């Protein structure tokens, strides 16, 4: 025994949870989506994911080592999660150099300029993705058609996403019932057999990841459920109001980035509100904004923008929406 006793203040035990474990929990939850993306998009999925993850890690390492000059925290897993999520938001045929630029924006601009993990106001992966979408609109919206493991990389056969088919079609005055025949069935959409970002297509894989994160208590249900619920309610109203102009709620939920966004992006600890009341409000606002952008906006897809817009409101929500304190109300016994 050392002669010196430790006299740190209480508590003297710790729950053994660590930032690293939480981050790797998210990584585990993303595995099903990664597997389905490889099954549908082949080698391209692997190249995009590897490039994104490696470049995010390298940029974080370089900035911490040469600019921050503080102890390296590259192993905390946060850059790994950002890299994976960025990759999952990209088409599987996007050139490597664009991925590296996107990773740089995610890590260097969106995360490290604010001081690194815990300080960034906007979701780094989404900032990277939106930067790429605006800067490289052609490459970012040519979606390979899922055609199994043999799918090539840059030369993959491409097609439009279900959301884009509907958006374009409605703009050209085609009736929705005809358009619905051109998009995959709900079963196919649920399994992910449609064009789109490589990680967002397979609803089943994302829901598996959601269940895992709930089970492991990595996230709570509040944000994903309020986003999906709001989208469901809002699109139901539109659909009932005019079924020839508006797609069904099921279509909206299964298409595009709703599930990936609500389960993995909107729940990012750093950029989401910190108490349940604010979480639900935040989720509802994301849901409403998503539908507004999809139905009335210029882009067929709106989840990324909706989340980024709501990220900006998070500090305000944290400051003004407070949990109801124990003993706040004076009641008589």
């Amino acid at each position, binding site marked *: 025994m050392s002669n010196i006793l430790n006299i740190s*203040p*209480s508590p003297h035990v*710790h729950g053994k949870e*660590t930032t690293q474990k939480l981050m790797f929990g998210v990584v585990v939850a993303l595995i099903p989506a990664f597997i389905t993306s490889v099954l549908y998009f082949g080698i391209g999925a692997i190249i995009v994911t590897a490039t994104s993850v490696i470049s995010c890690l390298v940029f974080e390492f370089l900035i911490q080592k040469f600019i921050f000059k503080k102890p390296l925290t590259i192993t905390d897993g946060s850059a790994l999660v950002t890299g994976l999520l960025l990759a999952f938001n990209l088409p599987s045929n996007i050139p490597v150099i664009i991925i590296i630029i996107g990773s740089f924006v995610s890590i260097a601009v969106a995360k490290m300029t604010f001081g690194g993990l815990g300080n960034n106001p906007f979701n780094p992966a989404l900032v990277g993705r939106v930067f790429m979408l605006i800067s490289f609109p052609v490459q970012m919206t040519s979606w390979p058609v899922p055609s199994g493991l043999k799918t090539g990389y840059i030369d993959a056969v491409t097609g439009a996403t279900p959301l884009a088919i509907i958006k374009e079609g409605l703009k050209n005055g085609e009736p929705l019932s005809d358009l619905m025949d051109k998009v995959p069935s709900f079963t196919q959409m649920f399994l992910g057999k449609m064009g789109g970002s490589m990680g967002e297509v397979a609803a089943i894989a994302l829901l598996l990841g959601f269940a895992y994160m709930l089970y492991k208590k990595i996230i709570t249900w509040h944000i994903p459920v309020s986003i999906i619920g709001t989208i469901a309610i809002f699109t139901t109203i539109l659909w009932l109001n005019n079924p020839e102009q508006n797609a069904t709620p099921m279509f909206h939920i299964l298409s595009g980035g709703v599930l990936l966004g609500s389960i993995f992006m909107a729940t990012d*600890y750093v950029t*989401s509100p910190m108490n349940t009341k604010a979480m639900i409000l935040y989720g509802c606002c994301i849901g409403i904004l998503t539908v507004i952008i999809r139905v009335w906006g210029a882009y067929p897809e709106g989840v990324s923008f909706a989340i980024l817009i709501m990220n900006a409101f998070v500090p305000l929500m944290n400051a003004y929406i407070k949990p109801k*304190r*124990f*003993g706040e109300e004076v009641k008589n016994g």
Partner: protein
Amino acid sequence: MLKTFPSGGIHPPENKLTANIQIGHLPVPESVTIPLSQHIGAPATLIVNKGDYVKTGQLIATAKGFVSSNIHSSVSGKVNKIDTIIDTSGYRQPAVFIDVEGDEWIETIDKSDKIVRDITLSPEDIKKRLLDSGIVGMGGATFPSHVKLAVPEGKRCNILIINGVECEPYLTSDHRLMLEKGEEILIGISLLMKTLKVEKAKIGIENNKPDAIAHLTKLAAGFKGITVHALKLKYPQGAEKQLIKALTDREVPSGHLPLDVGAVVHNVGTAYAVYEAVQKNKPLFERVVTITGKSLTKPGNFVVRIGTPISRLIEAAGGLPGDTGKIVSGGPMMGKAISNQDVPVIKGTSGIVVFPENESEREESGPCIRCSKCISVCPLNLEPFLLMKLSEKGLFERAEKERITDCMECGSCSYTCPAHRPLLDYIRLGKSTVIRMARERNLK
């Protein structure tokens, strides 16, 4: 569904290593050190001098003012010196050093094992007896019991809550007491009910102690108005406000006392001490202490005389293990790490936990990732991450608005934080500063 308090709370590993070990008696040591401040409130006033011979149970210091407590000698022998010591609180306190000679008890104490069931004293006499006997809250907070029993004008009490939760990991002194002294505890509760003039008493016990729940439920059938309630396992259920919420659904308002919702809370250990003081005329000079730790060879529960050095307890548990890194007085969640083994057992010492070196150092802390786990475990629905930040930056006015003084320092936030941030350390700093500021403001 089992009852519990609604929001927050954690489930630390229980590690109740000594739950099945009968309470033993620790031999009277050759000398004791009895601090004059073992309770919340003013230190007691010394009434013996160096060289005096005192008997076991003899009054050696009297309560100074209403919120204070009498202190009795726990041994017979000669007062060797009166000096200051560093006690479990970490502060320097005056204390009486007594060299033991034999074990001669004062004559008034009923030393027999016979259980005295008849309650003869009037409420006023019971209160006086508790004051005379130096009874304080035995759960660890050591609030003088007679103060809690004095219901002020205009307030009314209609329920007595008995805390048998023992939600701290490792500790088992209350658990053993409930199993071995169940009837005495129930008589003690009846005495408290008589004093408070209440008809109902609820004993709350967490369901990790099914034997104690069954035992007391069976015994309580013979007592009017006392019921036993199994509670869902959740820390910090033993906290006064959380326990009242769990058992009665009454919520004590922020900054108020349980009496404001008509409840008074006492610990099972206190109920036992009340029984001994009133029915056996025995002042509080010994208590049950759990001595435990994963590396100890013979952990156990012992009746220990107040003032016994902790080193004697550790010897009785097989000696200090070679890998010891920390000794904690109290439970691992809220107890205090002590700096040396000469520190004496006092009225509030419910247990001593010895931690091996690999469990006594904290992990390095990282940046807050805003995961909000601290908020979700806070039983008072505070925002620990924010309170820490405000305290760190010296923004104490804002911390006060965010109700930093509501914090009861249960440690659930620090326990949960994945970034290992020292949340509670900073909250304590902020809380004490805010309390000082408020006091200065009131003086103006």
